[in-house]
């Protein structure tokens, strides 16, 4: 009689422990999913902001071409940078693939640089600066650059939260069980020399 009840107790204890572990795993898995979804949603915001910038460019190019036809090189640089941006990979996979992420960041930064140069050049044409259309475009481009910076920063925060949770113990065990599903996310690196923002004069 005594032996049977002890086996019974042990069995119950083992089952209880298994249920606890299972429940804890499910809890951790859900947490990882939540953080992952958050980072993905924030990534979608970043790509929205990029798209917004790309959409402004045709209008800008037309406006500048009219008044500053001699600046062909700068205009062409912008158009080329924009088409390159259309060719690099986008979407969910970019956040976990270092190469794809790097490519996209580079392409977008190049576009940003080309736009910057175009606006600097446009400053030299008073008739262009005076047009309402150009001023509106300039305001929209500045707003978009600001949005890109804000969404990138928020993505970095979300990615860091996910990566930290994923790497810490014991969550890392659950993450490891599911292999590629919870791969580490890439971050935006600050551009060299970007710690000192250029003074913008109006």
């Amino acid at each position, binding site marked *: 009689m005594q032996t049977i009840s002890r086996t019974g107790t042990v069995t119950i204890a083992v089952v209880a422990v298994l249920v606890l572990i299972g429940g804890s795993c499910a809890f951790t898995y859900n947490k990882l999913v939540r953080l992952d979804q958050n980072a993905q949603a924030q990534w979608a*915001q970043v790509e929205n*902001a990029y798209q917004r910038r790309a959409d402004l460019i045709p209008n800008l190019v037309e406006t500048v071409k009219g008044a500053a036809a001699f600046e062909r090189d700068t205009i062409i640089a912008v158009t080329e940078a924009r088409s390159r941006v259309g060719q690099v990979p986008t979407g969910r996979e970019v956040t976990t693939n270092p190469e794809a992420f790097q490519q996209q960041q580079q392409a977008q930064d190049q576009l*940003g640089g080309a*736009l*910057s140069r175009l*606006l*600097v050049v446009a*400053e030299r044409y008073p008739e262009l600066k005076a047009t309402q259309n150009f*001023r*509106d*475009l*300039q*305001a*929209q*481009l*500045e*707003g*978009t*650059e*600001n*949005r890109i*910076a*804000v*969404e*990138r*920063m928020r993505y*970095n925060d979300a990615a860091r939260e996910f990566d930290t949770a994923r790497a810490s113990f014991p969550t890392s065990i659950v993450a490891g069980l599911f292999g590629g599903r919870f791969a580490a996310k890439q971050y*935006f*690196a*600050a*551009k060299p020399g*970007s*710690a*000192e*923002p*250029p003074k*913008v*004069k*109006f």
Partner: protein
Amino acid sequence: MLAAVALAAAAASAAVPPAPTRWVEDHAGLLSPAARDALDGKLEAYGHATGHQVVVWIGRTLDGAPLADWAVRTFAAWKIGRKGSDDGIAIFILADDRAIDIEVGYGLEDKVPDAIASRIIREVMAPRLRAGDRDGAVAAGVDAVLAAIEGHPWTAGASSASETRRWEGLGFAVLAVIVLIVFLVNPRLALWLIAMTIGRGGIGGGGGGGGFGGGGGRSGGGGARGGW
């Protein structure tokens, strides 16, 4: 020129000021007290009537820290606008830096896009500030922002004091219609209602008790920056 907002935490990041308790806060003495209170009342009435939160905050300087970055962090900390609708706008003015930054919440980006915010700064506020008309500049800027949200036309020269009166007028008109209907149904009830309303000193104004409290709204960095 495209402003490059630093991604790495800049060594000189200006601190976020404490959340405002009024709709208009002037820490630089830019506005006269009368103008500030009038504006505060108008924005409070607007907030109660429509739910959109438009806030004006005037400071002195950021000591060289990047304006857009500070404005975005401040808006995020104060959570202007209602949660879910994200319908908040903050007008930041830095008197010593001579800088203006209008931050627009996600929900109002279609009504007040960057181009319009930029025009309000450049065409409505900056000229008046350069001419020394500080009260007029801020009042006109606020009027232009409210007009843009409501979809009314606004021009650089216009400054309407009739906005607040319209909201209160609407409130009274609605009340009058309700009382009329009740009167037709039950005259005594209508008279009782009128007595209650007059006794409480009017409904349209809202009693002046409420201060400002952030509603949980968010912004994505939309808006415009400028100076004078």
